[in-house]
């Protein structure tokens, strides 16, 4: 029997009817058409499907969509403002932090949750927070550098914004 799911994705509220067996990633990709969230290992081992659920990075392939009822999800599509990329996205490009790009949206969402919680992480803290994210092209070092660069950019952006307010 289908059940109601009220969910906010990238700031937009959706009212859906779904089979209880539906995974969060299936709602995001198949019902809402947001294909940036990737499904790869499908056994909770790779983190390509990472989204931010009520402020925390989670694996959308391992959560029933109904468990996100009443909650708010941010996917990689929710980061850019119009054509202006989010500082984390831009830092990934500028630091050559992806090759095939398959894991990238998960990496970026993992980085987003990390930087929201810890705006200035050390190299080791980034390693620890990101150790569930597999990159089969093995670009881990550049990913770490991109996240450190993104942290710097976000802090500069924040300083500039508070400067404007003052």
């Amino acid at each position, binding site marked *: *029997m289908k*059940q109601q799911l009220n969910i906010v994705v990238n700031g937009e509220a959706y009212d859906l009817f779904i*089979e*209880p*067996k*539906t*995974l969060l990633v*299936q709602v995001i990709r198949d019902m809402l058409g947001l294909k940036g969230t990737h*499904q790869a290992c*499908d*056994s*909770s081992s790779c*983190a390509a499907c*990472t989204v931010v*659920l009520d402020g*925390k*990075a*989670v*694996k959308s392939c*391992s*959560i*029933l969509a*109904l*468990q996100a009822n009443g909650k708010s999800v941010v996917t990689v599509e929710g980061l850019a403002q119009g054509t202006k990329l989010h500082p984390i996205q831009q830092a990934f490009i500028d630091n050559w932090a992806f090759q095939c790009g398959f894991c990238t949206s998960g990496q970026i969402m*993992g980085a987003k949750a*990390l930087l929201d919680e810890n705006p200035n992480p050390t190299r080791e803290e980034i390693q*620890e*927070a*990101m*150790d*569930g*994210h597999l990159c089969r092209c093995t670009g881990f070092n550049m990913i770490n550098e991109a996240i450190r660069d993104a942290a710097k950019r976000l802090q500069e952006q924040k300083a500039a914004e508070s400067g404007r307010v003052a």
Partner: protein
Amino acid sequence: MKAITTDFEYLVAKTPEEALELLSQHKDDDYKILAGGQSLNTTMKHRLITPAYVIDIKSISDLDYIQFDEKKGLRIGALTTHRAVEKSPIIKEKYSVLAEMEGNVASVETRNWGTITGDLCHADPAADPAPVMIALDAKMKISGVNGERTVDSENFALDFFETVVEPGEMVTEIQIPALPPNTGVKFQKYSQMLGDYAIASVAVLITLDKKGVCTNARIGLGGVASTPLRAKIAEEVLKGKKITDELLAEAGRAASAETSPVSGIEASAEYRKELAGTLVKRVGKQALEKALKA
């Protein structure tokens, strides 16, 4: 295995009372309790289980707590996430072994949503929390509509993926006693990849008296039998003596003999057996050093 293919009826409990009522109603049905689902959802995707009902208890906020009392010790509510245990200041201070163990459970994403109690109830013998619970002498509080009971953590799992929790019951709390002075507890997991399930894992608790004689030892083993294991014979090797490297090696041999591992793609049974002994020796030494400093 991209999806869960078998339909089920999905029921949500928002309070412990609602959960127990639902469990009581469905105690003769084929149901599973869903907390974070970090093991359960994957098991359903693999089609290893196809329950008719899934009872979701994840949003019972009344059971999401960490409480500490100098006399009673630590109480962890059943809906507390791995990540909350890992980050808790009181756990870092009083039970650092728990925070250390949690730091290598799967990945941050899994720990953000998955619960430590759910992990224990999934009863994978190679999972990380159980050996630590055994070393800490933790008890599982199990509730049903007709009351509650507590079970020692070493008696909680019955077999691979099976526990003593009866139909109609659920675990509501983990209870960990206060640690006596001069106690050290350490845990180590040996796995192919950081965050993986253990090939073998060992937790050791050592308590010393003022003269440095071991008055209590508890050893929990993971990945080396069909359930998490308490190495009682190895514990006896250490009790009542001053612990030396030779004694730790003897305890390691005893612990190794207590295991009954199976072979798998990650390691052979012989390897796991040998490794358990080596880890008891190493982790025992770390626990001893911690007890001497405590």
